[in-house]
């Protein structure tokens, strides 16, 4: 499959950048004429992944969140969200709906469930002490290149 367009962005893991990240990605994919539902799905999934990097990956310290987004032919998009944070000990456990390591009761533990249900495919790779990469894929039904 051929890459039609690509962007890379990086920013410090400040929570105010969560909106910057999802709005940037939605601007990038706008060239594909996505439907409003598709935009909402992708913005939500990106917001979840970036929030995970900020809340869990880097916890109380500041680090860099890296996003690499690609548009392939046939309307396929791939978004990689990467951090160099603490990593996930047990990915299967982390992906269980309602599982959270947060003890304040303010996190639902549904981030991965949303990414799975709103995107076509999600891949998570992680190494303790090294960081986590979440890869999101979706094929849009709109205009084709």
């Amino acid at each position: 499959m051929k890459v039609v367009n690509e962007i890379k962005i990086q920013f410090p893991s400040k929570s105010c950048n969560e909106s910057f990240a999802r709005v940037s990605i939605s601007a990038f994919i706008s060239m594909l004429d996505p439907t409003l539902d598709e935009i909402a799905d992708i913005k939500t999934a990106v917001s979840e992944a970036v929030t995970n990097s900020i809340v869990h990956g880097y916890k109380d310290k500041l680090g860099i969140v890296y996003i690499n987004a690609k548009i392939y032919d046939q309307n396929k998009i791939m978004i990689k969200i990467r951090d160099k944070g603490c990593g996930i000990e047990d990915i299967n456990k982390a992906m269980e709906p309602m599982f959270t390591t947060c003890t304040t009761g303010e996190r639902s533990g549904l981030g991965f469930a949303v990414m799975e249900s709103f995107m076509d495919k999600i891949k998570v790779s992680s190494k303790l002490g090294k960081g986590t990469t979440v890869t999101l894929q979706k094929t849009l039904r709109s205009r084709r290149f």
Partner: protein
Amino acid sequence: MAVKVDINNNILTLYLVGDIDHHTAKEIREIADLNIDTYSPKILIIDFKEVAFMDTSGIGLVMGRYKLIKSLGGEVKIINLSPYLKRIMSLSGLSKLVKIN
């Protein structure tokens, strides 16, 4: 994000405006809890009519307020969810705990 607050006959209504994510949820939570503390409402209504975007931070926000209001013997209602917001809420099973209109 902005929160408009209305209190009337033991009913506290929070009108949420803008985006709800992990960043803005903190501010909403502080305003909500301050008002819940002050008025100890019997019913908390959270109005989502003006919410443009929400991720699962919004679910955490509602769950947290549900626990707080329940401990005071009250109940929580959620109103004016768009189909998109309903889709996110439906992943949470929240509809078993709070009334969604």
